[in-house]
């Protein structure tokens, strides 16, 4: 009895060979489909895992907790409008932390808050004016004359440049008005009378001229306020690049290294750096539209060098540039522009020349490690607030140096963060409450306290707080910040006791199931403790970014589905054709006594064998591809891919699951596409065997 089926297998195998064309077409498609599913399945999984590492090990942790009163959804890396979502406040982080730490599988909870602040680094004009003011204050006449003449030269240059620049004129009404006001400072009259009332003249310059340059140099920084020690201990990717860690119990700021290099560094230097990186990666400037654009705009940046040169440096550089560029007539602005006209053939030389001859005379970084910077922010109710903080160093997320997420945050201690946004600790709340009671106000609500702090002006409360050095805003200027304020320490326990906007929870077992379990457990525990918080997985917390893996997977599924659909159509077609070609033979078998089932089985077996062989080869192909890229590492082409790959190269891994899923899918769809031809074959009537033709 079984021999009849053995023979069927034999016929099927031999038919596969006899109908070589059909077998090759169908086989190739099945091979391709299986290979693609294995390869891209493994790749998407690797990207998913990479992205998971990128997000969870940089700042998100596995779960995020925030107030249940959130108006918006938490989006750690910004939402689609690139604004900070309002996710409410956890007023008593200590209480939340206590409950969460007691939940099984929780490794750590790190408080945080993310926001923007303006880094009012001042500008070149400010610095020159400050040093002139200092000289005036010191009564150092030779220095006053030198600084005055320099300021005069710079003002003239800047005015000429700005009034000639089309893009500036189109910047709007305010600017045009400011420019008109500033005209006076370019006239000989102004400078002739400068010595008569130096302070008035300085004030005019500070008020009217400085803001002009600000148009060119407003910088917003995004930063994350956190328990820096806990952050460093729990986010594996954290790595200090320059400087030192912020000492325990000290307030401090860590620049993101990529941000520091690519956004904060002197514009000309960083464009040159970017072009150098581009060329070091083996590209040429001419080949890349973005690089060409950078190069073309570089020439116009010469002013940023020019304004920073003092008179002596200007004279020296002019001489050096004349020799170097062999242009003996040209003045400094022309020479600088000429120097910055870089191209693929002169780039390396000009780059080296810039760093050797120009860099020593300019400020490569407006903020240096060890500097104290004022951070100016707007609280959520719109009040402006400024806090001074010392920059201890720069850090990076290892492997994510090139990705946008790796550059997303600068770090600051949570105490500074709270002050900047007036997120008060219970102690401060009590303090405010006491002050209020003293001044006759009964109840203190957070919003009210904030308004009180920044509002109206002359309540005792405000005076007191400002007097504590709590508020430096309004004084402005880097030179005036006293170091002791910025380096004010705090009791590390204060980090816990107080407000956090959100908190990252890190787990021991970070598998998807464990994560889901922990999420539910934390939800239950916080609810039982009446904590009014919301727990979300990192995918959700990361905002748009968190959905990327889902999107990538979806795209893969769609591609695979389309591929399989094409496979089904092609297989079906060629099988139907094969059926038609074999009508007589099948009719004969039917006439001799083969059942319909037997005939249908023949076709199914043919596909099954073909699917197994072609699918097997596809698996070999896909696995080979993955193994190859695993060894070599798939290189990330850009910042986004660096993020997806969680490093400069992706080393995908292939598992039995990928193979089984791919084989099952192809086999299923192959057999599915055989159903109709097999049915058709089983319907071939035995009478066709009698037909005399062919």
């Amino acid at each position: 009895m079984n021999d009849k089926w053995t023979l069927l297998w034999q016929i099927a195998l031999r038919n596969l060979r006899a109908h070589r064309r059909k077998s090759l077409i169908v086989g190739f498609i099945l091979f391709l489909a299986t290979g693609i599913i294995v390869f891209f399945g493994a790749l998407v999984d690797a990207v998913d895992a990479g992205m998971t590492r990128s997000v969870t090990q940089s700042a998100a942790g596995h779960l995020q907790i925030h107030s249940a009163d959130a108006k918006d959804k938490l989006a750690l890396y910004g939402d689609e409008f690139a604004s900070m979502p309002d996710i409410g406040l956890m007023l008593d982080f200590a209480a939340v932390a206590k409950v969460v730490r007691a939940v099984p599988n929780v490794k750590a909870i790190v408080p945080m808050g993310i926001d923007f602040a303006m880094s009012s680094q001042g500008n070149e004009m400010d610095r020159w004016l400050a040093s002139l003011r200092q000289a005036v204050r010191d009564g150092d006449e030779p220095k006053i004359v030198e600084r005055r003449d320099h300021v005069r030269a710079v003002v003239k240059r800047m005015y000429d440049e700005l009034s000639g620049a089309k893009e500036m004129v189109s910047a709007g009404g305010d600017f045009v008005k400011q420019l008109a006001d500033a005209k006076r400072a370019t006239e000989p009259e102004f400078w002739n009378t400068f010595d008569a009332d130096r302070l008035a003249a300085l004030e005019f310059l500070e008020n009217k001229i400085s803001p002009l340059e600000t148009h060119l140099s407003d910088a917003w920084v995004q930063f994350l306020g956190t328990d820096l020690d806990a952050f460093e201990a729990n986010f594996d990717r954290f790595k200090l690049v320059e400087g030192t860690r912020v000492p325990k119990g000290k307030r401090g700021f860590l620049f993101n290294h990529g941000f520091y290099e690519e956004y904060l560094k002197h514009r000309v230097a960083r464009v040159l750096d970017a072009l150098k990186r581009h060329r070091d990666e083996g590209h040429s400037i001419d080949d890349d539209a973005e690089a060409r654009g950078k190069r073309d705009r570089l020439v116009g940046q010469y002013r940023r060098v020019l304004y920073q040169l003092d008179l002596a440096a200007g004279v020296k550089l002019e001489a050096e540039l004349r020799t170097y560029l062999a242009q003996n007539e040209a003045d400094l602005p022309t020479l600088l522009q000429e120097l910055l006209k870089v191209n693929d053939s002169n780039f390396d030389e000009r780059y080296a020349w810039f760093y050797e001859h120009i860099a020593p005379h300019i400020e490569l970084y407006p903020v240096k490690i060890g500097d104290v910077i004022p951070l100016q922010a707007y609280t959520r109710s719109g009040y402006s607030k400024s806090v001074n903080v010392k920059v201890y160093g720069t850090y990076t997320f290892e492997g994510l140096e090139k990705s946008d997420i790796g550059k997303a945050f600068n770090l600051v201690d949570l105490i500074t963060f709270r002050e900047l946004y007036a997120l008060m600790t219970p102690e401060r709340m009590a303090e405010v409450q006491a002050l209020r009671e003293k001044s006759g106000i009964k109840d203190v609500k957070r919003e009210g306290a904030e308004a009180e702090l920044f509002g109206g002006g002359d309540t005792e409360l405000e005076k007191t707080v400002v007097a504590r050095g709590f508020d430096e805003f309004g004084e402005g200027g880097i030179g005036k910040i006293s170091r002791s304020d910025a380096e004010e320490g705090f009791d590390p326990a204060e980090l816990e006791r107080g407000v956090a906007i959100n908190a990252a929870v890190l787990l021991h077992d970070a598998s998807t199931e464990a994560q889901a379990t922990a999420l539910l457990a934390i939800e239950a525990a916080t609810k039982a403790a009446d904590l009014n918080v919301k727990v979300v997985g990192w995918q959700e917390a990361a905002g748009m970014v968190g959905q990327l893996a889902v999107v990538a997977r979806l795209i893969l599924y769609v591609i695979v589905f389309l591929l399989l659909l094409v496979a089904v159509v092609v297989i079906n077609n060629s099988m139907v054709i094969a059926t038609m070609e074999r009508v007589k033979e099948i009719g004969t078998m039917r006439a001799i006594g083969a059942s319909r089932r037997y005939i249908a089985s023949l076709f199914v077996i043919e596909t099954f064998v073909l699917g197994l062989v072609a699918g097997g080869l596809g698996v070999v192909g896909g696995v080979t591809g993955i193994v190859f890229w695993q060894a070599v590492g798939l290189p990330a082409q850009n910042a986004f891919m660096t993020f997806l790959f969680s490093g400069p190269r992706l080393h995908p891994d292939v598992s039995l699951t990928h193979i089984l899923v791919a084989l099952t899918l192809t086999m299923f769809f192959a057999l599915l596409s055989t159903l109709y031809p097999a049915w058709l074959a089983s319907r071939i009537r035995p009478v066709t065997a009698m037909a005399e033709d062919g």
Partner: protein
Amino acid sequence: MSNPNAIVHIQDAHKVYPLGHTEVVALRGINLTIERGEFAAIAGPSGSGKTTLLNLIGCVDVATRGEVIVCGQATQTLSDTVLTRLRLLKLGFIFQSFNLVSVLDVFQNVEFPLLLQGKLSKAERKVLVESIIEKVGLTGQRGQRPAQLSGGQRQRVAVARALVTRPELVLADEPTANLDSETGERIIDLMRDLNHAEGTTFIFSTHDPKIMERADRLVHIADGRIVESTR
């Protein structure tokens, strides 16, 4: 069914083929009885209905009207499954264009119906298949594929395949039409020998008067009717 010795009994069989909007009437009231052991030839001009009649007898098609009883079964009432079993167990076919399974060798082609029947062991099959291959004179070619054989050899394989199951009735639609006359006569002789030796009933159609002579029963049809039936 009056004649207990009849293997085929046809009464007023009509076959109408739909052809587009019209119909082609292939058989118009056939009455025919074939007895066991007969060596019967159906003769008639092209288009007269010979193939159609053999199809009805061979249970690969059913009559539009009238009764066709084969091996005691009224075919028009039977399902495809039962008809298939009937063909498998009781009938043998020899085709004009041989119709061997191209991917199987001589031995396997002959063995095929036995495998479908599934009644015999491998050893029993081997004995049976080899003896019938010897009878048709193809022992030397038992491992060859149809494509390697001549027309006459192929038809011998077909004869062996038709007879290996010891069917009650063997149908052959113009078995010699694709063969030269000498080879054709040898095939008919082979069939005739088997008819004598085994008592198997043969019904075959032919145009060839020389082949008709070999038959002991001659049924002449024209235009879908039996015009003469001689023994």
